[in-house]
C-alpha cells in the first residue's frame, strides 16, 4: 500500500494497466511530454513511449473521433479531455458514434474507450473550468458514466472502466484531486495523506462498475451523492450529528439501484446532492427513480441540493457551490416533514 492523492492514483491505474495491456494508448491535449495540466499522465510517455502516450491537436472532436477508430481497430484508447467544459465539441463523436457503434453494427464494432476528464468547480475556474455535465451523458444510451470520490476508488474504478468493452465517461472531481473537501472553503485544505482512502495498493485491483459504496450507514435519511459532494455531505452529517446513510454512487450509469432502494426503504427519506445545475440534472433521474420505487416508504419528498440553474459564476463561486449551509438546511427540511 502507498499513500496517493487522486492524481497519483489515476496515474497509477494507467501505469498498471499499460504495463499489462500493450493495446492501451493515452492521448489528449498536453498529456504527453508534459504529463497533463493536472499531471495525471506524468511519466507515462517516458515509460511507454511516444506512440502509446501522446499529445494531440486541440480538437476534442478529433480526439474522440480518432479514439473511436482506434477502438474499432482493437486498441483500448484512454483519451483525456482537459476540462469537462470542453467536451462539447467532441459530443457528436461520443453520442452519435461511440455510444451507438455496438448497437448499429449489432456487436461487430465496438468503442472500448474511456474518456477521462476533470470536472466540477470549487477552484475559482469560472464558467469554463467548473462545469459538471454528467447528466447529459447519463441520458445517452450506450455510455457509462463514472465519478470517483477517493484515490482508492479512482484507481479501482478507472481500471474497471478501461477494461470495460463499452465507452465510459470518467469524470474526475478536480476539487478533490489533492484532498477531501468539506465545503468549508475558509478552513485549511486537507490532503489525502491524512485520509484512509488515500491508502492505495500499488498493484492491480478493480472496483466493479455499477456498485455504489455506503460511506456511512444510517437510519434516518438517505443521502445520494458522488464526487466532491460525498465529502461535503459527510462533513454536514458529522457536524449535524444526524444518523444519515450516505451513499457514494460511484457509477451513475449503470446505477446501483439495489443499494439505493434498500436504503431509502429503510430510512424513508432521501436527499440528492450534486454540483451540476438542477433542472434535468442527474438528480432529477435519482429523484424520479426513488419516488417510483420507494413511494410507499417515503415520509417526505425527495429533495435536491444542486448547483443553481445559472452558469458557474467566478467571484460568487462559494454562493453557487452547494455547500454545508444549503445541505444543512435541506436536511432540516426533510427531517421536519
Amino acid at each position, binding site marked *: 500500500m502507498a499513500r496517493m492523492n487522486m492524481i497519483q492514483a489515476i496515474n497509477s491505474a494507467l501505469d498498471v494497466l499499460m504495463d499489462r495491456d500493450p493495446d492501451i494508448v493515452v492521448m489528449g491535449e498536453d498529456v504527453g511530454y508534459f504529463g497533463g495540466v493536472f499531471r495525471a499522465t506524468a511519466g507515462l510517455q517516458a515509460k511507454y513511449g511516444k*506512440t502509446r502516450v501522446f499529445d494531440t*491537436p486541440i480538437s476534442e472532436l*478529433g480526439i474522440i473521433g*480518432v479514439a473511436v*477508430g482506434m477502438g474499432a*481497430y482493437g486498441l483500448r484508447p484512454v483519451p483525456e479531455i482537459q476540462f469537462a467544459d470542453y467536451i462539447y465539441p467532441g459530443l*457528436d463523436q461520443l453520442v452519435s458514434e461511440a455510444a451507438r457503434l455496438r*448497437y448499429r*453494427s449489432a456487436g461487430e*464494432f465496438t468503442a472500448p474507450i474511456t474518456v477521462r476528464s476533470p470536472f466540477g468547480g470549487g477552484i475559482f475556474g469560472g464558467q469554463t473550468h467548473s462545469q459538471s455535465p454528467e447528466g447529459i451523458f447519463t441520458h445517452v444510451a450506450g455510455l457509462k458514466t463514472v465519478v470517483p470520490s477517493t484515490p482508492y476508488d479512482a484507481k479501482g474504478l478507472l481500471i474497471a472502466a478501461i477494461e470495460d468493452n463499452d465507452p465510459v465517461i470518467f469524470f474526475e472531481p478536480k476539487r478533490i484531486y489533492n484532498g477531501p473537501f468539506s465545503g468549508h472553503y475558509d478552513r485549511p485544505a486537507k490532503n489525502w495523506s491524512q485520509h484512509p482512502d488515500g491508502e492505495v495498493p500499488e498493484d492491480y485491483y478493480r472496483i466493479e462498475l455499477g456498485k455504489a459504496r455506503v460511506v456511512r450507514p444510517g437510519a434516518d435519511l438517505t443521502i445520494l451523492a458522488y464526487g466532491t459532494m460525498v465529502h461535503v455531505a459527510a462533513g454536514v452529517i458529522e457536524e449535524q450529528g444526524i444518523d444519515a446513510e450516505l451513499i457514494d454512487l460511484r457509477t451513475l450509469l449503470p446505477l446501483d439501484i439495489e443499494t439505493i432502494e434498500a436504503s431509502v426503504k429503510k430510512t424513508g427519506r432521501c436527499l440528492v446532492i450534486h454540483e451540476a445545475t438542477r433542472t434535468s440534472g442527474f438528480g432529477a433521474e435519482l429523484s424520479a427513480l426513488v419516488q417510483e420505487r420507494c413511494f410507499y416508504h417515503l415520509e417526505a419528498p425527495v429533495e435536491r441540493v444542486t448547483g443553481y440553474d445559472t452558469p458557474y459564476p467566478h467571484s460568487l463561486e462559494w454562493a453557487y457551490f452547494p455547500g454545508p449551509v444549503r445541505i444543512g438546511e435541506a436536511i432540516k427540511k426533510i427531517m421536519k416533514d
Partner: protein
Amino acid sequence: MSTRPNLPPLRLHVPEPKFRPGDEADFGDVPIPAAGATPRPAVDSAPAAFHDLAYGLVRVLDEKGRAVGPWDPKLSPDTLRGILRAMAKTRAFDERMYRAQRQGKTSFYMKCTGEEAIACAQAYALHRDDMCFPSYRQQGLLIARDWPLVDMMNQIYSNKGDRLAGKQLPIMYSTREGSFFSISGNLATQLPQAVGWAMASAIKGDTRIAATWCGEGSTAEGDFHSACTFASVYRAPVIICVVNNQWAISSFSGFAGAEATTFAARAIGYGIAGLRVDGNDALAVYAATEWAAERARTNQGPTLIEFFTYRAEGHSTSDDPSAYRSAQEREKWPLGDPISRLKQHLIALGEWDEERHAAMDLEVANEVKAAQKDAEKNGILGHGMHQPMSTMFQDVFETMPWHLEEQRQEMLAEAKAAGIETS
C-alpha cells in the same frame, strides 16, 4: 450600422448554381484537361512538389477509350472486366432496390448511379483487408469485394436475415469480415475514425491501411477538418476520398466552397498530398488510389483525393432533383458515364464487345433478381418478419444492465397482455 461616404456598402455573396429547373445546361466552361496530360509524381515525392495536381484532373481514358499517359495503371483485361462487372452489378442492384423501396418493401434507399467507378475501381486498388470507412454511397466497395448481395438486401429489408437485426436504416451496411466499417447516418463522422484506425495500425506496426469517403458537401463538417489535421500531424496511413458529385441534396457544391477552389486544394492547406481525379474514369480512379495506397503503405503519409463526378440521380428515395436542378445536367455533364467509358476502353482493346456486355448485364440482373428472391424469404420491412422484439435491447452494452433488462421484461409483459406477437 455605420455608413461612410468613402466606403461602398458591404454585400453578402450567396452562391447560386449555374442551372435551375428549365435552364439549358452547358458545361462548356468547366475545364477538363486532356487525358494523359497530368504528370504522375513519384510516390515518395513531397506533397509540396505537386500542388498543381490539386487543380488539374488525373485522367487516363481519352475520348476514344484509349488509356493514355503516366497514370495508366496498365491493368490486365481480366481486372478491367472485373471492375466493369462490379460497376454493372452495382447499378443493377441500385435499380432493383430503388424499385423495392418504391414498392413499399422498405423505407429508404440511396443509389450511386454515375459514381460507380469510385468505389468499384478502388476496391480493386486496395487490399482486401485494408479497412474502409465509407459514406452511404460506396455500396460498390462491397459489391466489388463480392460481398453476398443477399446479405446486403437483408439489411435493406431489416428482415430476419439482417445481421444488424433491423437496428439500422437501410443501406447502412456493416461488416468487419468485409473490412467495411459500420456506416453512420451522421455525415463525415467516419473520417476521423478512419484516421484513428490508421494511426492504430501504425502504432502496432501492422501493414493494413485505411481509406475513407465523404461527399463534397460533407467536407464542411468539423470532422473533415479534424481528420485532415490528425492525418497530417501523425502522417497516418490513410486515404481520404472526397466524392465531389456536385450536389448535396439540393445544395450545389458552391455551398461547400467550390466557387473558391477545388476540394483537392484542401490538402494543400494541411500540407498533405492531394490529387484531383476524373471520378468517372475507372482507370484514373484505380491509378490514383493505388498511388495513394503505396504512399500510405510506405509511411509517406496520407493522401486526400477529390473525385470529380456527378450525382446522376436523386439524393435518395426521399428526394426529387427536378425541383432544384436542370434535368439536362445529367446528359450534358462532360465526364460521361463510368460504365460506358470502361466498356468502350475494353472494346477498343479488343477484349470486349456489345454482345458480351449485354450478356453481362443480363447475368448481373439475374443475379440481383435471384438474391432479391432469397432475401425476401427472410421478410421485408413492416411485414412481421422482423427480429424478435427483445433484440431491441441487445447490443446497447456488452452485458445488459438492470434498467434495460427491466424495460425488456416490461415490454414483453405489456405485449403479452395486449396479445402482441413478440418473436
